[in-house]
């Protein structure tokens, strides 16, 4: 260090730097910074492969388990249950995956590097949105494995490849949108464990009090009422319509609308509580 003679550099002049300073972050810069943060998150995933355990095992395990346990009782046999169940598992898997976003963000926030992110002249949303962009990879893996497992077990989606692809894309988008809820939880909770607990409390009613695994008609009236308005039910129905009959139903629109509302509410909330953080 001291022995190295630094190459002659132009002296730093403060007045020039004040004059050249930008007043705010542009939309283009925000996007670039978000993608850099996504790059960081991908590097992190590659070096901690255990982050892929949930997205790899859950679809395989749950698909087999639910099909054999519930198949006979609900649809008579496993094979006729699959068209009903696979889109349900798809929604559940994607939701569980986006829950991890909050826990990981919370752990990340406690690290020193977030101090530096805060001190850099970058968009406040970039450190939050970056990992979510990287998480698209996890959703894709989870969704693809769910359908793959279904195919292995004898599921033959009537909607064809196009319908299945559309269902997967819709599920990924929903997962990304709902991840903002868990990101927000990640910025307000005191510890990663707390995030986990709160997220479970949000997640379980949403997935199990939906039409993901059972027909709504079998439920008592008050429960059916909740199940019908539950956004997860809309996603499940939309995914069934797309995968099983390639129908672009109104459910798709409802799902997209619910997603946009969630992002519009929880993205600003997350940024606000992140700014207050630390």
């Amino acid at each position, binding site marked *: 260090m001291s022995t190295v003679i630094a190459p002659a550099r132009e002296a730093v*002049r403060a007045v020039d730097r004040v004059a050249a*300073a930008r007043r705010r972050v542009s939309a283009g810069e925000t996007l670039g910074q978000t993608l850099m943060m996504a790059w960081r998150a991908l*590097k992190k995933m590659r070096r901690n492969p255990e982050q892929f355990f949930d997205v790899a095992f859950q679809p395989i395990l749950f698909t087999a388990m639910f099909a054999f346990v519930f198949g006979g009782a609900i649809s008579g046999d496993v094979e006729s249950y699959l068209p009903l169940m696979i889109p349900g598992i798809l929604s559940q898997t994607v939701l569980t995956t986006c829950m991890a976003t909050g826990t990981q963000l919370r752990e990340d926030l406690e690290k020193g590097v977030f*101090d530096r992110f*805060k001190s850099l002249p970058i968009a406040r949303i970039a450190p939050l949105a970056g990992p979510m962009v990287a998480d698209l990879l996890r959703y894709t893996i989870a969704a693809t494995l769910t359908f793959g497992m279904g195919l292995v077990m004898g599921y033959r989606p009537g909607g064809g490849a196009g319908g299945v692809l559309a269902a997967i894309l819709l599920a990924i988008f929903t997962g990304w949108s709902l991840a903002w809820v868990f990101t927000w939880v990640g910025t307000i909770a005191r510890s990663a464990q707390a995030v986990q607990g709160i997220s479970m409390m949000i997640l379980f009613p949403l997935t199990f009090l939906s039409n993901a695994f059972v027909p709504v008609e079998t439920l008592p009236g008050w429960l059916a009422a909740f199940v019908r308005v539950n956004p997860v039910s809309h996603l499940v129905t939309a995914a069934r319509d797309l995968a099983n009959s390639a129908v672009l139903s109104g459910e798709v629109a409802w799902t997209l609308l619910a997603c946009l509302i969630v992002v519009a509410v929880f993205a600003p909330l997350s940024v606000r509580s992140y700014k207050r953080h630390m």
Partner: protein
Amino acid sequence: MSITELGRTGGGPAPGGDTDPAVRVEGLVKTFSGHRAVDGIDLEVHPGEIFGVLGPNGAGKTTTLRMLATLLKIDAGRAEIFGVDVAGNPHVIRQLVGVTGQYASVDENLTARENLWLFGRLQGIAAPRARRVATELLGRFGLEEAADRPISRFSGGMRRRLDLAASLITRPPLIFLDEPTTGLDPRTRGQMWDTIRGLVADGCTVLLTTQYLDEADQLADRVAVIDHGRKVAEGTPDALKTTVGDSTLQLLLADPDEVPAAVEVVRRVLGSDPVLSPERGRLNVALDQADLTADVLIALRAAGLSISSVSVAKPSLDEVFLALTGHETDKGDKTGAEESR
């Protein structure tokens, strides 16, 4: 508490037309749940100087720095950096200031090179240049060999160096260093000092916090001493040291009741009063020259006063504090925990 003005205030506006001070702080306040961690601090840092903020744990040093770096909200008072209001233009301030914290703020999951690349790219540096700057900084900080290793295997000194390198990517005109050498071994510490001096040679201004008087002495052009969120003294390190002498003779009397007699002896020999430590029977005597030790000891012997322990030390922050505030640094004070995060 009055502010002791020590000696001349060095520095002054640097030639080159930079008329605004690098940092101007007036009446800065930060309150954590009712406790005023920073309680009305005024500072003025001139461009091109190294300014040291000296104080014990929990004095409010880190909190002050974090407010100036836009990491904490300013509760009251005003702060300007190169004439730009900190609270009103956080985005501009972040482009002017490089921050190196007490705890290395680099990404554990990335290699050293990837860290520098990420921070460069985030600040809008084009890919080829970000790569070049990363390589240059790794070389300058002696990290080439470790460049592609994960940070988790780095030593404390290497992390600090990488952390400082990461603050220099855009060559900010003002650099904040929060206790840059705490926890480093003496050799690494000396290297860090050289690096910090090099920054100023480049035209940067440095604001650093430290708990060590010798570090402030080695590096800083001017020093502000902070205690309980307030500035208790400001001046050159030399002026600061004169208040406590060049070295300190620490005496422990065998009989604590003989303290008044010992004070009388010291006054006769040196013409100044020793500082009484809260510990019974302990006296700290500021000496202009270490040679005077013998004179004091001989005089004590002649007066028939018995000493159970004696040592001569460089004045530490404790002595400065004792001399300036009349109380010792509160080492066990729990306010330190609030300050650290």
